[in-house]
């Protein structure tokens, strides 16, 4: 079970490969992952950049608790959350969640849970820069 905050761009495929290769060979029957990337539009406006602020210490703790909750609810073998911080641009990966389990239901359901739980609990805040140079804080999460 691991949580990683990345202040620079990360490669979800490479992170996923590293995560899966760390598991005992033959134990995993299912692997589910989700990657969230930055859009170039929000609420009808063109967005050119975004800053992801977080609360060092609390953010990691909340993400670890999200993984612990998933491990209590589903029979999972391992889980990973990677999340960006700092300045990002459209197309950049923001978040990767991944879950490995013996059977597919636990992997699918726990992976979805990690995303929804982190969106409501983990202390991150987005400030976006619009095409006209204006900056604004994102006030609400988009519905799933």
């Amino acid at each position, binding site marked *: 079970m691991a949580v990683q905050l990345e202040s620079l761009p990360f490669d979800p495929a490479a992170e996923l490969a590293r995560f899966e290769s760390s598991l005992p060979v033959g134990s995993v029957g299912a692997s589910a992952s989700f990657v*969230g990337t930055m859009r170039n539009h929000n609420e009808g406006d063109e967005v050119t950049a975004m800053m*992801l*602020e*977080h*609360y060092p*210490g*609390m953010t990691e*703790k*909340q993400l670890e608790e999200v993984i612990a909750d998933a491990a209590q609810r589903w029979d999972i073998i391992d889980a990973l959350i990677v*999340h960006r911080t700092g300045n990002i641009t459209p197309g950049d990966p*923001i*978040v990767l969640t991944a879950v490995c389990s013996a059977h597919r239901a636990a992997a699918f359901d726990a992976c979805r849970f990690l*995303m929804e739980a*982190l*969106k*409501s*609990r*983990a*202390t*991150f*805040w*987005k*400030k976006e820069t619009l095409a006209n140079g204006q900056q604004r*804080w*994102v*006030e*609400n*999460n988009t519905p799933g």
Partner: protein
Amino acid sequence: MAIKVKFFASLREQISEGLEQVDATGIQTISDVWERATQTQLMPERVLCSVNLEHREPHEAVSDGDEVAFFPPVTGG
């Protein structure tokens, strides 16, 4: 005898001259910390709070040495 205070994101920009530390004397709840740290600025409706890195409600108790944070709804992921 002090409580550490942090403000994040839009709230940090909204609160003018928010204190990073307040004297713990007479402080019982998170709301008391807000009042002292912001010098009685009105608490916006959607403010969330934490004590020692755990989500809490404004009426909950704090102690000397705690770290209290105030922030808007989270928007990660």
